[in-house]
C-alpha cells in the first residue's frame, strides 16, 4: 500500500457505534415487519375482501381534439358530441347474453361487438372498453332506460369531429379512425387504449400528438353489480392544441370548384414563404363517413372508383411532368452554355435519332425555333436536340437542384420522391445501361421522369423567386387552448439553385409568352389584370399508335399546368394536373387561371364581378413524342 492511514484515537468508539447502528437497523426492520404483520395478518380478512370487490373504477373522459383552422383563423374542423357504449369486463355477469342484448338494442351485428370486446383483452378488467360508437340519441336514451338489464355497461359522451365544410380539403385534413391492434402494439401509440380515435391520414395523422389532447378521468365507486354510486375524484381532460394551417379557405374552395369533378390535383403556394395556400386532390371523400360506422356501399364505392377518391394525388400521385419539365431542360442548356437566347434550330415536325423517329406534337413543324418560341409553342424537337447534347445526367443535375426527385418534407406522411433518372439510377434499378435514345423523352418530361404535384409547385415557385427552394409547408402555427403559441413555422430555405440571373430572365420571358403572346399554348389561363407566366404540359399514359379518334378515358394523356403571378413581383405559384385531361393548355390551364383569379380577387387586386371578356385563344395542345418505329434505341 502506498500510504498508511493514521489510525485515529477513537477507534474504540467506532466499534461501539457499529453496534449502535446495527441495533437501529434491526429496530427499523422490526417496525416494517410489524406493519406487514398488521396488514397481512391482522387486517388480512378486510383487505382480501376489498381486493375481491375492488369498487373503485376509472372512467376515462376523452379530451376534445384540437381544432384545425385555416390561415385566417376560419374553422376547417372542430368537434361535436357523440355517444358510445362501453363495457367494464369485470362488472359483466354474463358476457354472451350482454352481447346479444346490445346487438338487439343497437341493431348491430353480434360479431362486430364481440370482435371489439376481444380486442381489449390484456388490459385492466376494470377499464371501460368501447364496443359501439356513434350511437344515436334515441338509442342512448333507450339504453339508459334499460340499465338494469345491462350490468357492466357504461354510456360515454365524447366529442367527435365536425366537418364544417363537408368534404373540403378532405385529403389534406385526413380522417379519424379507431386505433388498430397493430397501432396499439407500436411504440408510437403506446399511450393509447383500444377504442381511442386517432388521425389516420393527412394533418390529423401527422399532427396527432398535438391535436389529441390529454384525456382526463373520473374515479368512481360502484356497487357490487358495477353500477355507479358516486364520483370519488375527477381529473379534467385538456383539449388538444389548435393547428393553424397555411391554407386559405376561400382559395381552397375556389381551387376545388375550379377542378370540379375532374380527377386530378392542384397545389397553390406562396412563392416567398413556401406556405401552401391550396391543396386539392380530386375526387374527394367525406371524412365524416369514417367517424361513425361507414355504410358498406359507400366504402365499396370509394374502393371501386377508377379515379381513386381516397388517394392524395397532390402528395402521392407521381406523374410524368411532360412539357412543364422543359423549363428544367432549358435551364440546363443555358447554364451549361449549350444554348443562348438566340440559338435556333429547325423543327420539321419530327426528329430522327438512330432508326427511331421522335415526333413533335405539331406534326407540321415549328420551323425556325429559338428559346422563347420553344417555350411559348412548346416545341418538342428543340428539346429533343437539346437533351441529346446535354445527356441525361446533366439534365438530372439541374432537376435535382430544383428539389425534384426527393421528398420535400411538407409535413405529411408518405410523401413520394418521384424519379429523376440518371445513368447510375437505371443501372441500379434495372441492372441495364442507359441508352442515349432514352435521353430524348427525358428532355420533354417523359420516359422515366416522375414528379408529384407538390414538387411541380415547388419547382415553378423556385423559378418565380429566382433560385430559393423553400420548404412547402402546411402548418403555420400550433396554439394551445390558452392561446399560447407553441410552435411557429417560419419559412425554411431548403437550398439555393445558384444559377446565373440571366438564365432566369430568359426562361421567365418564355413562360410569360406561353400565356400572353399569340401562338402561346397557355392562352386560356390569361388574366387581364395581372401578368401570369406559366407552362403547359401533357404527359403520356400509354403509347398510342393513333392519337386521333375516341380514346378510352383511362388511356388519355394527363394535362398539366404550372404558373406563377404576378410576373414582375411573383407572389403565388400554382401547379395543376388533370388526370386524362389530354391537353395542358385547355384542361389544366383554365383551372390554374381560376385559382389565380380567386387569389387576386381575395387580395382586392381584381374586382369580383368581372365581365367575361377573356377571348378564346387558339387551343394549345401539344402531343407527345411517339416513335414511329419500334426503334432499338428506345428500348
Amino acid at each position, binding site marked *: 500500500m502506498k500510504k498508511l492511514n493514521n*489510525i485515529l484515537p477513537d477507534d474504540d468508539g467506532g466499534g461501539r457505534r457499529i453496534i449502535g447502528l446495527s441495533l437501529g437497523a434491526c429496530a427499523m426492520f422490526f417496525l416494517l415487519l410489524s406493519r406487514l404483520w398488521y396488514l397481512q395478518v391482522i387486517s388480512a380478512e378486510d383487505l382480501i375482501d376489498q381486493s375481491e370487490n375492488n369498487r373503485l373504477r376509472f372512467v376515462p373522459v376523452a379530451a376534445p381534439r384540437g381544432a384545425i383552422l385555416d390561415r385566417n383563423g376560419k374553422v376547417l374542423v372542430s368537434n361535436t358530441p357523440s355517444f358510445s357504449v362501453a363495457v367494464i369486463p369485470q362488472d359483466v355477469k354474463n358476457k354472451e347474453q350482454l352481447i346479444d342484448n346490445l346487438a338487439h338494442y343497437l341493431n348491430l351485428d353480434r360479431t362486430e361487438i364481440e370482435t371489439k370486446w376481444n380486442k381489449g383483452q390484456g388490459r385492466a378488467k376494470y377499464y371501460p372498453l368501447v364496443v359501439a360508437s356513434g350511437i344515436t340519441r334515441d338509442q342512448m336514451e333507450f339504453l339508459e332506460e334499460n340499465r338494469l338489464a345491462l350490468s357492466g355497461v357504461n354510456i360515454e359522451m365524447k366529442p367527435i369531429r365536425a366537418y364544417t365544410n363537408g368534404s373540403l380539403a378532405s385529403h389534406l385534413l385526413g380522417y379519424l379512425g379507431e386505433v388498430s391492434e397493430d397501432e396499439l402494439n407500436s411504440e408510437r401509440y403506446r399511450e393509447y387504449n383500444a377504442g381511442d380515435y386517432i388521425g389516420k391520414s393527412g394533418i390529423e395523422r401527422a399532427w396527432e400528438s398535438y391535436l389529441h389532447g390529454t384525456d382526463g378521468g373520473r374515479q368512481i365507486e360502484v356497487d357490487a353489480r358495477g353500477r355507479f354510486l358516486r364520483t370519488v375524484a375527477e381529473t379534467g381532460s385538456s383539449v388538444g392544441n389548435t393547428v393553424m394551417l397555411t391554407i386559405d379557405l376561400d382559395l381552397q374552395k375556389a381551387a376545388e370548384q375550379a377542378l370540379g369533378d375532374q380527377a386530378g390535383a392542384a397545389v397553390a403556394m406562396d412563392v416567398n414563404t413556401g406556405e401552401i395556400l391550396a391543396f386539392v386532390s380530386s375526387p374527394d371523400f367525406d371524412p365524416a363517413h369514417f367517424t361513425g360506422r361507414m355504410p358498406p356501399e359507400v366504402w365499396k364505392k370509394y374502393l371501386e372508383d377508377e379515379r381513386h377518391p381516397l388517394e392524395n394525388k397532390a402528395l402521392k400521385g407521381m406523374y410524368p411532368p411532360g412539357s412543364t419539365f422543359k423549363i428544367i431542360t432549358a435551364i440546363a442548356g443555358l447554364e451549361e452554355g449549350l444554348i443562348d437566347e438566340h440559338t435556333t434550330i429547325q423543327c420539321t415536325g419530327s426528329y430522327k435519332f438512330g432508326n427511331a423517329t421522335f415526333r413533335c406534337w405539331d406534326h407540321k413543324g415549328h420551323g425556325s425555333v429559338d428559346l422563347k418560341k420553344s417555350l411559348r409553342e412548346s416545341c418538342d424537337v428543340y428539346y429533343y436536340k437539346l437533351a441529346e447534347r446535354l445527356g441525361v445526367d446533366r439534365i438530372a443535375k439541374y432537376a435535382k437542384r430544383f428539389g425534384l426527385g426527393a421528398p420535400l418534407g411538407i409535413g405529411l406522411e408518405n410523401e413520394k420522391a418521384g424519379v429523376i433518372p440518371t445513368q447510375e439510377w437505371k443501372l441500379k434499378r434495372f441492372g441495364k445501361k442507359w441508352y442515349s435514345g432514352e435521353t430524348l423523352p427525358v428532355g420533354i418530361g417523359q420516359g422515366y421522369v416522375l414528379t408529384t404535384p407538390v414538387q411541380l409547385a415547388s419547382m415553378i415557385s423556385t423559378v418565380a423567386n429566382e433560385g430559393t427552394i423553400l420548404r412547402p409547408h402546411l402548418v403555420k402555427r400550433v396554439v394551445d387552448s390558452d392561446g399560447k403559441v407553441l410552435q411557429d413555422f417560419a419559412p425554411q430555405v431548403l437550398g439555393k439553385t445558384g444559377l446565373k440571373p440571366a438564365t432566369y430572365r430568359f426562361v421567365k420571358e418564355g413562360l410569360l409568352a406561353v400565356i400572353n403572346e399569340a401562338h402561346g399554348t397557355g392562352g386560356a389561363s390569361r388574366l387581364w389584370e395581372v401578368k401570369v407566366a406559366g407552362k403547359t404540359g401533357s404527359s403520356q399514359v400509354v403509347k398510342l399508335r393513333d392519337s386521333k379518334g375516341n380514346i378510352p378515358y383511362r388511356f388519355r394523356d394527363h394535362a398539366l399546368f404550372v404558373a406563377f403571378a404576378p410576373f414582375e413581383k411573383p407572389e403565388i405559384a400554382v401547379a395543376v394536373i388533370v388526370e386524362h385531361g389530354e391537353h395542358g393548355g385547355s384542361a389544366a390551364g383554365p383551372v390554374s387561371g381560376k385559382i389565380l383569379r380567386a387569389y387576386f380577387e381575395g387580395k382586392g387586386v381584381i374586382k369580383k364581378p368581372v365581365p367575361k371578356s377573356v377571348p378564346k385563344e387558339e387551343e394549345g395542345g401539344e402531343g407527345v413524342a411517339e416513335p414511329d418505329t419500334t426503334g432499338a434505341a428506345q428500348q
Partner: protein
Amino acid sequence: MFDRRLFTNFDWTLLGVVLLITAFGVINIYSASSSYRDIGTPYYLKQLYWIVAGLGLCLTVCSLDYHMLEDFAYWLYGGVLVLLVLVLVAGKTTMGATRWISLGFFNMQPSEPMKIVIIMTFARFFSRYPVFKGLTLRELVQPLLLLGIPAVLIMKQPDLGTAILVSLIAGTMLLFVGVRFSALGTIFAAAVPTVVIAWQFLLHDYQKKRIYNFLNPDLDPLGSGYHIIQSKIAVGSGATFGKGFMQGTQSQLRFLPEQHTDFAFSVFAEEWGFLGCLLMLTLYLFLILWGLGIAKRCNDRFGSLLAVGVTAMLFWHIVINMGMVIGLMPVVGVPLPFFSYGGTSMVTSMVGVGILLNISMRRFMF
C-alpha cells in the same frame, strides 16, 4: 500484482445474498409485467441484462484497491457537482423535472452517482480528521456544507427523493463518526425553522401534495393517495401465505401503479404473503448487518467509513421503498435495491456492493 489472498478472502456470502435477492426480483418482475402489452424486450429480460452489466461493474470496482478512491474522492465530488449545475442550466426536462443531461451518445442523471460520491467524500474528509468525544457544532459546519451544496442542487431539479437519500446517507455517516449531544440538540432546534422555510420556498406543489396525501390518502384517491390505498390492499390481501405466483389480482388487474418498478414489492407481498415478506426482510437485514460487520472488521478508518456509507445507502433505499409500499411513508420515487426494475438503481447498488466486497477482501492487508 493481484494477491492470491484476495481471492481466498473473497466475500462469497455477500455476493450470494445479493444474487439471491436479484433472482427474487427477476421472478417478481416477470409476474408484475405479465399483464402489460408486450412491446419490445420483456422487462424481466432487460432486468437480467442490467444485472449482468451491474455485476461486471461490481467486479471491476472490487478489483481495484479501494484506497485509490481516497485520492480521487474530492475530484469526483467536484466533477459531479459541476454536472449537477449543468443539469440545472442545460438539462433535459421530462415530466416537469430536469434530471438528465445529454452527453451526446447517452443521457445521464448526475444525482444518482452523487449518492456514491458523497460517501467517498465524507469518508475521505473524516479519515484524516481527529475526533474526540464526537463532533462539535463548529466542526459540523464544513461537512454540512459538503452535503448541503449538492442536496440543494438536487432538490432544485426537483428530485426530493434523491435529495433526502443523499442527506440520510451523509447523516448516518456523521452519526458513525460521532456527534456531541449538544450539537445534535442545536441542530434539531435549527431544523424546525429550516423545514418551515423549505416548505415555503423549496418544495414544489406536487411534492407538498404528496405529503398531504400521505397524511390523509383519502384526499386524493385518484392521484398518489390512490396508489397508497391500492398498494395497501395488495399487500394486505396477500395474507399469510400469499395468493401464489402470477395470481395477485391487484397486480394482474393492474390496480397498482408502476408495479414493476417502485411498487414491485407490493406485487411480491400480494403473491407471496407474510412468509415471503419475512424471507425478503431477513435477506435485506442480513445484507445490512453484514455490511456493518465489514465496516467493523476493516482496519483503516477510510474503509470503515466507506462501508458504513454504502450500507447506509442500501438501508435507506430499502426502508423508504418498503415504508412507501406498506403505507408508512409518502410516495417518493425510490426503488428497492436489486429488486425493482431499473438500470440506474441496479448500477448504483452494484457499485456499492463492489465497494463492500473490495473492503471485505482486503481486510487482512495491513
